[in-house]
């Protein structure tokens, strides 16, 4: 049923490969993966590797962290070249230097492995954004 599940997506991301799904019906891209197309809910999907390039749409500097993590850090939403928006961490900017000027900056997507949180059902792999 699943052309791409979360563990396959995480394993590829660990090698800095951002995988997604291309819809054969409407042509749009979906990532992180789902069982159906984010745009048209069609299930004729093909697994593809995405460019891993995008633009910051918004961000925050988290200064009060959930149990397990240490603040401050930057969380951002990035619009990928292929269209989907992806949440991750901007890792090559000092959180105390971050300003609203970050919005619109181009990034490339690599990865970060997260093991510090409880109640997660295993480790996580997060997109790490490098501002160019």
């Amino acid at each position, binding site marked *: 049923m699943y052309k791409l599940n*979360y563990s396959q997506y995480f394993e590829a991301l660990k090698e800095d490969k951002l995988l997604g799904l291309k819809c054969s019906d409407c042509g749009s891209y979906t990532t*992180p993966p*789902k069982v159906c197309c*984010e745009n048209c809910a069609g299930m004729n999907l093909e697994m593809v590797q995405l460019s891993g390039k995008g633009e910051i*749409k*918004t*961000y*925050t*500097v*988290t*200064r*009060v*962290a*959930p*149990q*397990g*993590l240490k603040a401050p*850090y930057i*969380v*951002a*939403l990035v*619009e990928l070249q292929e269209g*989907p*928006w*992806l*949440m*991750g*961490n901007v890792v090559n900017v000092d959180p105390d230097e*971050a300003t*609203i000027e970050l*919005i619109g900056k181009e990034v490339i997507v690599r990865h970060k492995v*997260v093991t510090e*949180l*409880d*109640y*997660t*059902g295993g480790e*996580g*792999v*997060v*997109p790490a954004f490098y501002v160019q």
Partner: protein
Amino acid sequence: MRKVAIAGVGMTKFGASEKSLVELFTEAALEAINDSGIKPGNVQALFVGNCLGDFSEGQANIGGFLASELGLPPGVPATRFEGACATASVAVRDAFMWVASGFYDVVLVGGVEKILNMGTPMATRTFAMASDSKYEVFSGLTFPGVFAMLAHMYSVKYNIPLPKLKERMARVAVKNHANGAKNPLAQFQKEIDVDTVLNSAMISDPLQLYDCCPFSDGAAAVVLTTEEIAKKVIDKPVYILGTGQGSAGALGRQKDYTVMQSRIASARQAYDMAGLGPEDIDVCELHDCFTIAEIVASECLGFFEFGKGSDALETGETEIGGKIPINPSGGLKAKGHPIGATGAAQVYEIVKQLRGECKDRQVEGAKIGMTDTLGGDAGTIVNLILGI
């Protein structure tokens, strides 16, 4: 469908409480039952919202314990609902449907939460569980973070410089604290000014401490019944005229969430069912978990055009006495936000407003009221329209 009435309401004071989940809910439930004039033995079902009891008190499956505590007969089903911060509103909407359908004549419904004993790091962690666990939580996303990113996006999208937007956001907190100061059940009953907000600690850029609602303990409950029964037992029934509920996936999948599609769809359902529009609403309790959240909600519900919601903080249109009074209770910001109880507490306030029982914070002549409750990062949204 039958017309559904709210026969009684009850609510604890919000804030830190030494009481247990069961004790808190019982206090609100008994007040609602006594207010309704309906005998506890006539309650046919109990619907209870509780989100984080598993973590705060190690209590799952709380329904049966509440039914037992209240002395309800063993044949009364007691069901727990969960929809993050919209938990109790999901329960109220479902209870409405069971009464409207004719299956039950009397349902006791509400919500309860205890948060403060978890402490800030664990509370922040458990709240974050309402975001996408595989694809967004590992980024360290927090709820202040969700709305902080919304504020930045809003500032850029509508070309409102951040300092100007932040001052208008601060005015949301100032307004809601002024209202909360007139609400004896509010967690914070003190007025603040814009500088209080702008000088407070940074939580998640650009949101400061006073842009955020507090962690809270508390409970609220209502008794739903038929129009026929309500007219026999109380003087001023309030009716549920419309309900709506919408859904959405992870924040990234929603893309530009300054316009929340799940909220627009939910509000549309409620307006259509009631045969009303935003211009008919006299008073609204909406989900001001953060100051920017009130502004965005006021646009999605149709009170203001998109991008114009923050203007109202300068014109006073959302104050008591304004065009559309928003959060006369103090809102989540000042009244408090025990997440599993919040939706029922919004219903409590609207019922009290429509009955004309709100004293210093009364919206004069209010006949139609609306609630708006947001669960998670817009994953669950519920709207209710009440009228007399």
